[in-house]
């Protein structure tokens, strides 16, 4: 669909709503839009409704069916109408089967046809408002109660639906029970049903009896979550039952099957783990039931509210006091509880639960062992089988649990005095220890809190416990161990040296200065180090026997499990080590809380002094302040457990191979560095003086000596004891890794290089010579035109331009190297018939001229050949002037026959002027001289005639002028008369207006005029002026005087004008604004002859004759000249 309308005239695209073309203004056709069927107005094609009348647009053919009448009072909003979809005709069901329409819908539609499909209002549906319910659908009407069946609940919850189901009648209940027991609906065992419906389906299915619906759960406390309360009301009810009557934990476990999976996962994992079904009721009283969800309360009740059942995150300090008092649990209950664990909980809690539970089963260790086996998960079962087989020789280690737990168990069995409390992790021990005295006071028979350090202490004191103590440490603990060891107390280097000397002799000694990179992470406690060395020794022995270990223990299990098994296998050999450990490694401060830190500080200081004396700067890696931090307690415990040889983690076992715990001098260490105790490639990884890259890339930075040593001692690599973290990172199999490393460094072998050097040189000689990188780049070919544009280097020399062309014409004439202007002026064409423009001849000439100027330059127009040459024209002007002068002279001084006679009749204006002068006789007359001497030849005669007449009548004369020349003329012309000269009148019209206000009998006497003070006599004369006579040859002066002075006063105005000004005066005379006038010399001669015949007018008569002759000559010249030039006019 096109979104634009193309103008048929100019093909310009226009918007859809345009009626006229935006470019040419032509009317756009209506067919491009959708015409409204109602108002015929065009609309855009994408309109559903007409923009003009709002009716629905139906493009194309008219509708087949009559358009339904739209209700005028529709409740639909405007937006809904505007964006509604195409409607369906009444009765048009489309693809629907008419028979499938519900009755009420069919009835309703038929009834509401006249109502335009409006639904009844909701308020009308109430029984009070409605008189009948016939128009309502059946499902909306309750015939029994006449009330609305459905009451909208304020809060739709599960209990709401549960309540609805419970209130159904017996028949519907049967239907519902059958429906819920239908496997097709509910799925296998009701898997498709929600949890809250399973309770309804399960009891009804096997028995067939309708169980009474459970009472609607009472509103719970605010602290109880609704969804939790609604979830398992039956369990909530169980809180009211005596605890002794609670079902067996297994039964409780079965009940938990009702729980949805997600809720089971949310359930605290250890609730069943440590559940005690026979827990005294008073034990549960210690818990606060408030604020605990029902299921928690239920579980707490079923499990005798044992605080230990709660997970750590649920235990508060107060609850932990109770939890500590409930740590002894029967083995059977623990086993059942263990079975209830989810898988992930089993994985996670196997160790903790075991170490918490089984020490408590000290009364029957065999039963505890068997029950412990049942509680193990699969992987622990496998482990148990293996370890049991391997440890059958030793009954104390045959439980399949981690060995340190077994050791603790055995230790407790033997000592029967160590408290077995620990169900709590370490981070809870602090609170546990605080609560322990209280618990002991309340229940002295029960063990107090379990201290991890105490546990380690017990193990340290018991040699039998030391067997395989390192085994239980999982890998993740091993990974954490170095960090903890970093914070270990300072080492006594001298004591360390002595211990190592005793154990390994000088052969195993490596200077610690070279191994400080290994020293840092594994600096153990000073008393532990000898024990660690012992462990290393034992470990090496073990690994020597490791190849002979059973494959089922070494291959099928995890590494640390395999190690654990191995430790068990060599248990007998470790007993001797344990004895030595007791002599050397058992620290004095091991008994837990009795650590004497002051003594330890003394030891630290002594160690530092000794280290300095041995040129071993222990301050580089020991921070004394950090050594006394509180974190040492944990690491002491760990390391105390590691006092046994086999308890050392793998990373500590490396110490034996490396022999780092020595204090040799650097010189001695240089000789011993390549000893068998440490692989060379590991030694190369350490940071040394060559830089730390050597530790990162050992193979790449191997020196020749190292490479040779490495290659020559492959057996050593094979047998090298690698830590797990190195094993996992470098190689899965040690032998494979060694072979790989051999491959990696094979090319560095000096012998191979020397043998192949000649061949290599030959190969290199055959290679083509290497190219420089820049030579390998392809050179781009620069085109010529681009080369020309390349900027030239300025060398200070003037660039010589080959050709310098100067503009010859036009505005740029004279400028060099101008660029010719592109001809942009198109020549006009002849107008076509359809063209709107016509080119006139002048336009064509202008265009031609412009084009000529732009393209061809300005060419001087062809010199028009004058009709008369300049000389001839000059002579013509002279001729005309001579003719005129001749006429003037002939008229003045020629024969009388050439002089004209004045007219006998006096013109009417002149007669009116004479009447006005006669009326002003004896009265002051204002005479205005508004002309220059140029008009004097014509006006002076009028002035003389009129002044003589006024003087003869006895009228006082007042002269005035607007021009300086006029004042002079006035002075010259009135020299023979007694006149009063007014000052110059400036301001033209405005000045004349002020003057006019002072004239006449208007009651105003002007004492000053234009800044000049008038004498009282003058002012009085002005006030008594009866006639104003104006002599002027200028139109402006005439107009100003007539309009300003004549209009401001009633004083009559007479004009003495030139003959050329007569047409201007004549209208004023005709209108009465001018009383009379004299127009030129002929009127003046006639006026003199008529009214003053005695006046001397000889000069005037001569001048009049000359003027007449000049006019005649002029007319002849004009006639001859016009005819001559008119006939011989040059054609353009």
């Amino acid at each position, binding site marked *: 669909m096109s979104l634009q309308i193309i103008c048929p005239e100019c093909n310009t695209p226009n918007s859809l709503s345009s009626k006229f073309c935006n470019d040419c203004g032509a009317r756009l056709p209506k067919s491009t839009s959708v015409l409204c069927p109602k108002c015929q107005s065009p609309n855009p094609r994408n309109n559903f409704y007409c923009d003009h009348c709002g009716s629905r647009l139906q493009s194309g053919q008219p509708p087949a069916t009559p358009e339904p009448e739209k209700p005028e009072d529709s409740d639909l909003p405007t937006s809904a109408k505007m964006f509604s979809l195409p409607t369906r005709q009444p009765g048009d069901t489309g693809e629907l089967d008419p028979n499938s329409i519900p009755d009420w819908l069919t009835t309703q539609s038929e009834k509401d046809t006249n109502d335009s499909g409006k639904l009844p209002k909701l308020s009308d549906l109430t029984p009070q408002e409605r008189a009948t319910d016939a128009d309502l659908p059946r499902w909306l009407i309750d015939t029994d109660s006449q009330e609305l069946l459905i009451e909208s609940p304020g809060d739709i919850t599960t209990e709401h639906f549960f309540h609805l189901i419970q209130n159904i009648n017996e028949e519907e209940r049967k239907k519902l029970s059958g429906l819920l027991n239908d496997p097709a609906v509910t799925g296998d065992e009701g898997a498709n049903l929600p949890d809250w419906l399973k309770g309804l389906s399960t009891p009804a299915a096997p028995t067939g009896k309708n169980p009474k619906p459970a009472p609607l759960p009472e509103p719970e406390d605010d602290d109880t979550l609704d969804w939790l309360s609604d979830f398992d009301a039956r369990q909530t009810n169980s809180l009211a039952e005596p605890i002794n009557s609670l079902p067996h934990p297994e039964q409780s476990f079965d009940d938990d099957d009702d729980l949805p999976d997600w809720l089971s996962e949310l359930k605290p994992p250890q609730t069943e783990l440590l559940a005690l079904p026979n827990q005294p009721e008073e034990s549960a009283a210690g818990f606060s039931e408030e604020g605990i969800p029902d299921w928690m309360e239920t579980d707490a009740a079923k499990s005798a509210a044992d605080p230990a059942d709660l997970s750590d995150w649920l235990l508060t300090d107060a609850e932990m006091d109770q939890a500590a008092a409930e740590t002894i649990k029967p083995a059977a209950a623990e086993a059942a509880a263990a079975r209830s664990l989810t898988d992930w909980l089993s994985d996670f809690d196997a160790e903790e639960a075991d170490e918490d539970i089984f020490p408590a089963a000290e009364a029957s260790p065999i039963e505890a062992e068997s029950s412990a086996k049942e509680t193990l998960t699969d992987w622990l079962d496998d482990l148990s089988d293996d370890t049991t087989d391997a440890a059958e020789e030793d009954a104390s280690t045959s439980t399949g649990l981690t060995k340190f737990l077994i050791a603790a168990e055995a230790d407790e069995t033997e000592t029967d005095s160590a408290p077995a409390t620990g169900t709590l992790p370490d981070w809870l021990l602090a609170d546990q220890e605080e609560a322990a005295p209280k618990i002991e006071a309340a229940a002295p028979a029960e063990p107090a809190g379990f201290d991890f350090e105490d546990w380690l202490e017990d193990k340290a004191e018991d040699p039998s416990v030391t067997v395989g103590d390192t085994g239980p440490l999982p890998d993740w603990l091993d990974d954490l161990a170095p960090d903890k060891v970093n914070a270990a107390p300072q080492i006594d280097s001298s004591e360390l040296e002595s211990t190592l000397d005793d154990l390994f002799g000088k052969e195993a000694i490596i200077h610690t200065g070279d191994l400080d990179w290994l020293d840092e992470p594994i600096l153990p406690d000073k008393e532990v180090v000898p024990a660690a060395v012992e462990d290393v020794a034992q470990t090496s022995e073990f690994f020597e026997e490791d190849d002979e270990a059973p494959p089922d223990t070494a291959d099928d299990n995890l590494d640390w499990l395999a190690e654990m098994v191995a430790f068990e296998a060599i248990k007998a050999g470790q007993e001797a080590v344990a004895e030595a450990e007791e002599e050397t490694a058992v620290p004095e401060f091991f008994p837990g809380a009795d650590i004497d830190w002051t003594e330890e500080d003394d030891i630290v200081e002594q160690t530092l002094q000794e280290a300095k004396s041995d040129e071993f700067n222990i301050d580089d890696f020991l921070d004394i302040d950090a050594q006394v931090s509180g974190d040492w307690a944990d690491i002491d415990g760990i390391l105390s457990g590691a006092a046994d040889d086999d308890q050392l983690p793998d990373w500590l076992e490396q110490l034996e191979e490396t022999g780092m715990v020595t204090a040799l001098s650097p010189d001695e260490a240089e000789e011993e560095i390549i000893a068998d105790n440490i692989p060379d490639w590991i030694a190369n990884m350490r940071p040394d003086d060559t830089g730390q890259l050597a530790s990162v890339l050992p193979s790449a930075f191997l020196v020749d000596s190292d490479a040779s040593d490495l290659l020559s001692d492959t057996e050593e690599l094979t047998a090298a004891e690698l830590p797990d973290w190195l094993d996992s990172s470098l190689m899965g199999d040690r032998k494979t890794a060694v072979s790989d490393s051999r491959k990696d460094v094979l090319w560095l072998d000096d012998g191979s290089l020397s043998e192949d050097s000649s061949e290599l040189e030959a190969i290199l000689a055959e290679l083509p010579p290497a190219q420089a990188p820049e030579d390998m780049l392809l050179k781009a070919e620069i085109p010529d035109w681009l080369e020309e544009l390349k900027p030239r280097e300025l060398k200070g020399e003037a660039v010589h331009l080959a050709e310098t062309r100067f503009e010859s014409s036009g505005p740029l004439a004279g400028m060099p190297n101008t660029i010719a202007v592109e001809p942009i002026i198109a020549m006009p064409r002849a107008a076509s018939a359809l063209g709107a423009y016509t080119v006139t001849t002048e336009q064509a000439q202008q265009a031609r001229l412009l084009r000529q100027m732009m393209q061809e330059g300005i060419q001087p127009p062809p010199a028009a050949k004058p*009709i008369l040459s300049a000389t001839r024209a000059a002579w*013509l*002007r002279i001729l*005309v*002037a001579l003719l*005129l002068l001749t006429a003037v002279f002939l008229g003045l001084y020629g024969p009388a*026959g050439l002089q*004209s*006679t*004045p*007219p006998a009749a006096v013109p009417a204006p002149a007669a009116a002027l004479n009447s006005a002068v006669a009326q002003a006789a004896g009265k002051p007359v204002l005479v205005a001289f508004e002309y*220059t*001497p*140029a*008009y*004097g*030849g014509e006006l002076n005669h009028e002035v003389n005639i009129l002044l003589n007449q006024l003087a003869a009548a006895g009228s006082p004369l007042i002269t005035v002028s607007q021009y300086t*020349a006029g004042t*002079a003329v006035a*002075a*010259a012309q009135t020299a023979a008369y007694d006149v009063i000269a007014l000052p110059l009148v400036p301001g033209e019209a405005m000045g004349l207006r002020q003057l006019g206000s002072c004239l006449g009998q208007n009651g105003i006497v002007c004492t000053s005029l234009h800044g000049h003070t008038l004498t009282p006599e003058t002012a009085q004369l002005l006030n008594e002026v009866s006639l104003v006579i104006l002599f002027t040859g200028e139109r402006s002066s005439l*107009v100003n005087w007539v309009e300003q002075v004549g209009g401001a006063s009633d004083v009559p105005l007479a004009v003495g004008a030139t003959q050329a000004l*007569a*047409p*201007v005066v*004549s*209208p004023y005379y*005709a209108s009465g604004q001018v009383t009379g006038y004299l127009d030129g010399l*002929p009127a003046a001669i006639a006026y003199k002859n008529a009214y003053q015949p005695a006046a001397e007018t000889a000069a005037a008569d001569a001048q*009049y004759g000359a003027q*007449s*002759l*000049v*006019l*005649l000559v*002029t*007319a002849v*010249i*004009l*006639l*001859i*000249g*016009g*005819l*001559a*030039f*008119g006939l011989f*006019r*040059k054609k353009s």
Partner: protein
Amino acid sequence: MAQAFEWVQAPLEAALASMLAVFLILSGIRMLQRQRTIWSVLFFVTAVTILFANAIILNPFTPPGISQVVLQFRDLVHNFIVTAGIRGILIGVALGIITLAVRVLIGVERPYNK
């Protein structure tokens, strides 16, 4: 001072005015050469007629009958045609003055603000 005015300024201004007559004659002669239109011809005819009327009629050699006809023609042109033209000019000037006064009063025209 009066002598200077009488013997210098007055003859100069008279000479300039006479030159006007000469140039008007020359322009009238060449008018038909430059622009030969009906209006130019009309102007030329009118000028020659008025000149002849003022000259010939006053000439004693002219017959009185012709003189009267010429005088009537002159008066016709002078009193009606020329007067009508002058009145039209005056009316136009008056309307222009009124319009200018209104424009100045309402502030549209500010002749002294430029």
